[in-house]
């Protein structure tokens, strides 16, 4: 919908401005930069700093008004460069600088500091302030990750507004008043938020700094590239910055389609794990009778190839299995998918172990993130955005504040439960009515519905999850679907997983039919001769270390990995893989948007990209994958006939956010906002963030040159799980005496090899917690803070906490190797609870 326009006069030029926007935005649109500190386009205006004063003509003559705080109006006449405005700017800056220390040479912000820049541009040049300035104890750690230098603070309210409005965790607030106003946490309660890093990025001075980056580099020494965070499949756009071949930091870029400039801490500080060489696999190595020896790549690859060849010859192709983790690029995934299906010809591959749902449900009628947030109704089905796709949680909060109506369907409440329209529990004791309640909650409003489908609860079997979702989609036939699954989009798109539907595949050879669980089970039974673990820790799939040892005795484990893990410790052949920031490529996010990955540093040691390893292995196995460069892979994907038909790197130069797939999807992007120039210090200029920024973002396939190939093969209709017999809700077997339903849900900081390699974030890992509804706790005699033992397929010792939310039964928070032991292959996990003696 085109915006309504009003006629305005800015500095004597007659212009048109969008109706209803803030004057400061209208001035930005017109290319007139007004200095500012407190205004942030993604947060509400507060008019705190008074730096954006401009003269506005009114019925009583011209007067100074904060341009961030008034709406643009028809006939408005504005002066931004008059003497009065200049004098006001001098005055405000002098006031702000009265107490601001002149420690720019040692301040991390120096060189990219909005206060420094604006003092040069608009300041009076000299100080009249001779008194002693404020002094505070410094630095104050307001969390493990954020440090506060109070005397630098100019009290713009950006960080506190972010914590309150955007993150919804007001753990920092102003304390005091006037000259002693200061940012403060409460007593001993840290600013413990998944999103704390953002406050350092939006701080217009050096008051808030991140511990990992503090005193690490000077901004003018940093080199950067545009990239995408790959910690989850949200696809947050980032500026990846490095100095002296070491990643220094990541900043969020304001992408209208995706992350609105925010990042979660898990993503923002993931650079620290890449840098931690001690936890990285740096050289190929082999294990033989004498122990482990470092070898050359050639020797290691030859050993791998001969093992694979022998396994195929002796026990058939299915005896070779490939499991892939979460951090492979699209190109890596495709190369390995092709190796497995066309060269090895095995059906035992799973690159999307996290996708415990029929993938075809995700692609029948896909929605983009923006579509989901603009829909009349959004159904969150079995997803926990905060712990799985953190930045989406922020987007959802903002959308809900703006009036989005959300129906949440979950077995365990999330942090959104308190603010959604309706929460509908998935109650294993009463499954039959779940979908009825969801449909009823939509109030007959079935036309503009988006279902965000996930598989958050590990205790829910894949078939049950699919059946529930299938029923929901068949009852709301026009609903669009957005994937809420944090990992595995790349693997689904190329067909590197049994859960990937046939219509979207880019590979055409042998189809995967064994999933990760059945592969691991087969390996434990000794039916797999060679197991290739691609950046995948088998303990993350629910193996204990003992099981891993016995598995590695019966099966040759080939581990291609960036980080050391239990799997690399026990593997026969270990190959070093380049990590995030060390290789170019691209990736897909949950809305099937194609996003670029930047290479900013050299791979550690002898690490190589996974796709290169696949190509070399293929040629050692006497075959060819048919590509030598990344561009070859892109070309092949473009012509594959799968969902990625028409793929091309030229889109990256055409639009900031990358195109949506399938390309037949047209996308309405709302009016592009001008970036907050201070949100990405060091990437200050709009031009440097992407080409054609002002020209709008809509890609019309018919207008784009050079991708005609393959478009005709874009799947028009995908095989449907909706219409198939699966869409009948399974009745669960009732509980027997002493049994309880259990939910197992992930948290953002659940132990994984990457997280353990991160010196800053590993401190955030917590033991699993069993949250119990108070009534159930009483029945079982479980005390708040006590311990108990859960016995399911395996058993686990856990800490108990009484639920303060609407938890219905037993909810185990924290997916770890130990808690995954509890999972069997039932439709819903049942456990017995034993009081522990300790």
């Amino acid at each position: 919908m085109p915006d309504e326009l009003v006629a305005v006069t800015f500095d004597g030029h007659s212009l048109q401005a969008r109706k209803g926007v803030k004057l400061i935005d209208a001035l930005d649109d017109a290319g007139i930069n007004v200095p500012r500190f407190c205004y942030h386009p993604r947060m509400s205006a507060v008019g705190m700093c008074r730096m954006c004063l401009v003269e506005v003509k009114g019925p009583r003559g011209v007067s100074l008004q904060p341009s961030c705080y008034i709406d643009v109006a028809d006939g408005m006449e504005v002066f931004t460069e008059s003497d009065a405005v200049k004098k006001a700017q001098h005055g405000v800056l002098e006031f702000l600088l009265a107490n601001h220390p002149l420690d720019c040479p040692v301040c991390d912000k120096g060189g990219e500091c909005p206060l420094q820049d604006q003092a040069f541009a608009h300041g009076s040049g000299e100080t009249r302030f001779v008194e002693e300035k404020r002094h505070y104890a410094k630095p104050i750690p307001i969390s493990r990750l954020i440090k506060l230098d109070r005397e630098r603070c100019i009290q713009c309210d950006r960080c506190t507004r972010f914590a309150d409005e955007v993150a919804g965790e007001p753990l920092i607030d102003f304390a005091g008043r006037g000259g002693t106003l200061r940012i403060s946490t409460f007593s001993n309660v840290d600013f413990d938020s998944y999103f704390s890093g953002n406050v350092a990025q939006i701080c217009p001075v050096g008051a808030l700094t991140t511990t990992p980056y503090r005193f690490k580099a000077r901004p003018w020494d940093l080199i950067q590239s545009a990239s995408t965070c790959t910690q989850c499949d949200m696809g947050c756009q980032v500026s990846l910055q490095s100095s002296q071949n070491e990643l220094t930091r990541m900043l969020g870029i304001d992408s209208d389609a995706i992350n609105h400039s925010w990042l979660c801490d898990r993503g923002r500080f993931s650079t620290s794990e890449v840098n931690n060489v001690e936890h990285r696999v740096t050289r190929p190595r082999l294990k033989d009778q004498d122990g482990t020896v470092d070898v050359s790549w050639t020797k290691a690859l030859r050993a791998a190839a001969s093992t694979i060849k022998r396994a195929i010859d002796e026990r058939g192709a299915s005896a070779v299995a490939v499991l892939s983790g979460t951090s492979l690029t699209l190109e890596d995934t495709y190369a390995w998918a092709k190796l497995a299906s066309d060269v090895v010809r095995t059906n035992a591959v799973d690159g999307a172990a996290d996708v415990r749902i029929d993938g075809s449900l995700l692609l029948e009628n896909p929605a983009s993130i923006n579509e989901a947030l603009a829909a009349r109704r959004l159904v969150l089905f079995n997803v926990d955005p905060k712990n799985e796709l953190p930045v989406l949680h922020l987007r959802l909060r903002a959308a809900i504040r703006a009036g989005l109506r959300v129906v949440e369907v979950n077995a365990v409440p999330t942090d959104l439960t308190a603010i959604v329209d309706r929460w509908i529990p998935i109650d294993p004791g009463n499954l039959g009515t779940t979908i009825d309640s969801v449909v009823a909650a939509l109030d007959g409003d079935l036309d503009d519905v988006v279902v965000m489908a996930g598989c958050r609860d590990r205790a829910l079997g894949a078939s049950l999850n699919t059946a529930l979702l299938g029923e929901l989609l068949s009852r709301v036939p026009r609903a669009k679907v957005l994937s809420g699954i944090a990992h595995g989009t790349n693997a689904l798109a190329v067909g590197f997983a049994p859960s990937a539907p046939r219509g979207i595949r880019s590979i055409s050879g042998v189809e995967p039919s064994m999933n990760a669980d059945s592969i691991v089970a087969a390996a434990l039974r000794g039916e797999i001769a060679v197991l290739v673990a691609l950046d995948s820790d088998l303990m993350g799939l629910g193996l204990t270390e003992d099981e891993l040892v016995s598995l590695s005795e019966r099966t040759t484990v080939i581990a291609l990995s960036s980080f050391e893990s239990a799997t690399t410790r026990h593997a026969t052949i270990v190959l070093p893989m380049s990590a995030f920031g060390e290789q170019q490529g691209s990736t897909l996010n949950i809305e099937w948007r194609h996003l670029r990955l930047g290479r900013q540093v050299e791979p550690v040691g002898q690490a190589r990209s996974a796709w290169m390893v696949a190509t070399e292995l293929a040629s050692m196995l006497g075959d060819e994958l048919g590509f030598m460069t990344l561009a070859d892979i892109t070309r092949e994907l473009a012509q594959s006939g799968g969902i990625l038909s028409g793929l091309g790197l030229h889109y990256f130069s055409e639009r900031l956010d990358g195109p949506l797939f399938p390309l037949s999807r047209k996308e309405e992007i709302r009016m592009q906002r001008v970036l907050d120039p201070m949100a990405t210090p060091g990437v200050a200029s709009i031009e440097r963030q992407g080409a054609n920024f002002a020209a709008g973002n809509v890609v019309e396939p018919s207008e784009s040159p050079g991708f005609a190939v393959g478009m005709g093969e874009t799947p028009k209709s995908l095989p449907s799980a909706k219409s198939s017999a699966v869409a009948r809700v399974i009745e669960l077997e009732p509980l027997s005496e002493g049994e309880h339903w259990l939910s197992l849900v992930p948290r953002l900081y659940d132990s994984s090899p990457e997280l353990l390699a991160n010196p800053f974030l590993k401190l955030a890992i917590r033991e699993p917690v069993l949250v119990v509804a108070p009534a159930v706790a009483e029945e079982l005699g479980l005390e708040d803070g006590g311990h108990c033992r859960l016995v399911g397929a395996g058993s686990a010792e856990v800490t108990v906490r009484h639920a303060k939310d609407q938890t219905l039964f037993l909810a185990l928070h924290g997916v770890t190797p130990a808690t995954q032991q509890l999972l069997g292959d039932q439709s819903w996990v049942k456990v017995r609870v034993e009081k522990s003696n300790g």
Partner: protein
Amino acid sequence: MARFSDEMLSRAEELVALYPDPRSATIPLCHLAQEQDGYVTNEAMAHIAELVGSTAAEVQGTASFYDMLKLEPVGRYVIGVCTNIACMLRGAYELLENAEEVLDVPVGATTQDGLFTLEEVECIAHCDQAPAAQVNYRYFGPLDRQSFESLVSKLRSGELNEEVPPHGTLIRIRREAPAVIPMEEIDRNRAGEAE
């Protein structure tokens, strides 16, 4: 010295119920905490946050804004000597110096026995009795060294207990909240007025 006692808690819940948005009760609850402990303790701020559905940091942010809410322990009697212009002309600075000597503490400090905290305050609207001082917001004046000494000794002996409650207690008369007027009635009345 901590969270609200049972009696205070029931009063707190009454206060919260007075407002459409529980957060509006933050400041009244801070006064209640101050009445219980003499100042707003950290535990009380955490408890208030639970009661009004905000975070302790926000309660601290609010409480630290206001001079009448103390976040550090103060004496049973907080003595504020006015040094604004009317009192100053009538010898407020001498009074303040005398007060420091009599209590043997500098401005801003609390006596060893925890009875008195001395403060310098701006106009307390008691100019007709300048130089004036307030003790827990009860006014005294005009004061000189002698009358100040006698005021302190009366406070110490408990002679003024009736008049000056311990710091934090704003009033000792408890008033019941009036019955809630239903919205319909208000609307009806308004409609009547409009006609």
